[in-house]
């Protein structure tokens, strides 16, 4: 049992689950607290991941400083994007952020001198070198970051700034007439949360250890969205439950418990994505508030 808990498999499973929980919680903050439909998560996440690795490998900066720099870069890129997009309607924001993510994927592919292009960028070592336990120690560090994020999200929803964001989401005109600079708050909040996505992108880099442009595909975005919709979009617990219900059940239990022949095993990822899609349709159709329930807001 101890050997399983310290194994690379368990550590990687734990770390990836934690990263997805973080992305989904941030998505909950953006979509449900601030009312911004972000379909470019993969883009911000990819910028964070690549920026961190580039600072680390090309400039030999310490890993933890690289992560912070990566998050700042992501936030600074998100700022002008927010300035352009956030005063458009929901559908335009959705399409615009989706387009942004595909620009990011493209640019990572094209700028070979910096990102390594399709040859990849690596190798990123585990930052805390404590021999055979380095994987699980790093996994626990990632979990600590995620717990901190959840506490922040929980506090934010009770804090005056959180209430301000709720008021902007529900009735921006009214909120503005009370003298709040609503648009500026929305932009700043979006940039900060995108910076956080970048931070978790940076934390993902050592887990992959070797980066390829295809990792920055829209699948990351949709996985987070499906988890949020399934778990319940208006609760932080919904984000956590949603990730456990999708990632854990499908990716880990299905692979570990079901003994599948080799040909069928190749089909498993396709089956999982098809099932994700089906789940998303069914949840929105029959229980739009998700597993954890909560109130639903209309546009």
């Amino acid at each position, binding site marked *: 049992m101890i050997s399983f808990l310290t194994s690379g498999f368990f550590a990687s499973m734990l770390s990836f689950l934690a990263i997805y929980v973080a992305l989904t919680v941030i998505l909950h903050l953006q979509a449900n607290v601030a009312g911004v439909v972000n379909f470019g998560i993969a883009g911000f996440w990819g910028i964070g991941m690549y920026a961190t690795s580039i600072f680390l490998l090309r400039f030999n900066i310490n890993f933890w400083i690289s992560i912070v720099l990566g998050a700042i870069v992501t936030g600074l890129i998100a700022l002008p994007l927010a300035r352009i997009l956030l*005063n*458009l309607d929901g559908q335009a924001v959705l399409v615009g952020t989706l387009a942004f993510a595909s620009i990011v994927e493209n640019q990572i592919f094209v700028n070979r001198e910096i990102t390594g292009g399709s040859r990849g960028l690596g190798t990123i070592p585990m930052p805390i070198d404590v021999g055979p336990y380095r994987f699980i120690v790093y996994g626990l560090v990632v979990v600590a970051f995620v717990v901190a994020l959840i506490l922040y999200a929980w506090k934010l929803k009770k804090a005056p700034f959180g209430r301000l964001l709720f008021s902007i989401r529900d009735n921006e005109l009214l909120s503005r007439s009370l003298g709040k600079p609503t648009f500026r708050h929305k932009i700043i909040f979006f940039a900060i949360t995108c910076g956080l996505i970048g931070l978790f992108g940076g934390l993902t880099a050592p887990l992959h250890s070797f980066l390829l442009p295809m990792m920055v595909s829209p699948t990351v975005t949709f996985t987070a969205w499906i988890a949020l919709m399934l778990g319940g979009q208006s609760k932080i617990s919904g984000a956590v439950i949603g990730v456990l219900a999708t990632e854990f059940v499908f990716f880990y239990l299905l692979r570990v418990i079901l003994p599948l022949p080799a040909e069928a095993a190749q089909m498993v990822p396709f089956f999982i994505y098809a099932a994700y899609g089906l789940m998303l349709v069914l949840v929105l*159709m029959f229980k739009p508030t998700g597993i954890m329930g909560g109130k639903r807001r209309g546009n």
Partner: protein
Amino acid sequence: MNPILLQFTFIIGLLEAAPMVLAAVGFTLIYRLNGFVNVAYSENLTIGAYTGVVLNTMLGLGFYVAIIPAVLVSGLFSVATYLLVFRPAMRRGVNKTELIIMSVGLSFLIRYGLTMVFGVLPYPFTHDRTFIRFLNIGITDLQIVCLILAALVSIFYLMFMFRTNYGEKMRALSDNEQLAKTSGINPLRVTIMIWFMAGVAGGFAGVFLGVFSIVVPWLGWYEILFIMMITIIGGIGSVPGAIVAGLATSILRSGVTLMSDSYAGAVTLLVLFIVALKYQAVRKGGIKT
């Protein structure tokens, strides 16, 4: 810009425009009527292309014969997505943004379902092509036929929208549903008709895309952003706009691609796309700062 390059840009752009114009027309029809971005529309292209290629290679039908069942299947698929997914969702009061997320889910389901059936290996159409040298560019007879077909279909759709009773009913329904209903228009019948026509246009686009290169499960998905961009530049919901913007952006894309490497083209257009989004919001007066 030297004249030869300009010539290349125009010819290649025009030939590549054939599928994009049709796809944009179908996409914009659905937006016009139901007012949401249907990402699952991309799967109409894929399904059309797969139906075509299966009939063409496995049953040995000629390419031009295989087009007809392919577009019909794509049209029926489009109607099925409306009746089974979007109509019940709209009746349950799912909002616009959630409808888009739902369409993304549906697109996932269909795309990976197709991948499980057909695998990731590409299917090529078997069709003999004659290469023609036209103004120093090697093109195939197939590309010309597809361009002509696309032009005919586009003209048909324009006529349908603006010259027939159904087109009028459809425009009435999208402008004011209550008023349309009181004037005795059966909304269900008109809506099904429109989704079918949109699917047929998507099927044509898919078959053309497939025959120009290869048929893979992500054929439609790769193009959907570009299709959205065309419709947004052309004024989302406008059929003539989609046709003009489809031609213009395809020519622009081929120009940028010829002058730099192929990825810069995609980026330039996506930037243009965000500018167009912004511009339209300003023009609508819906912008709030």
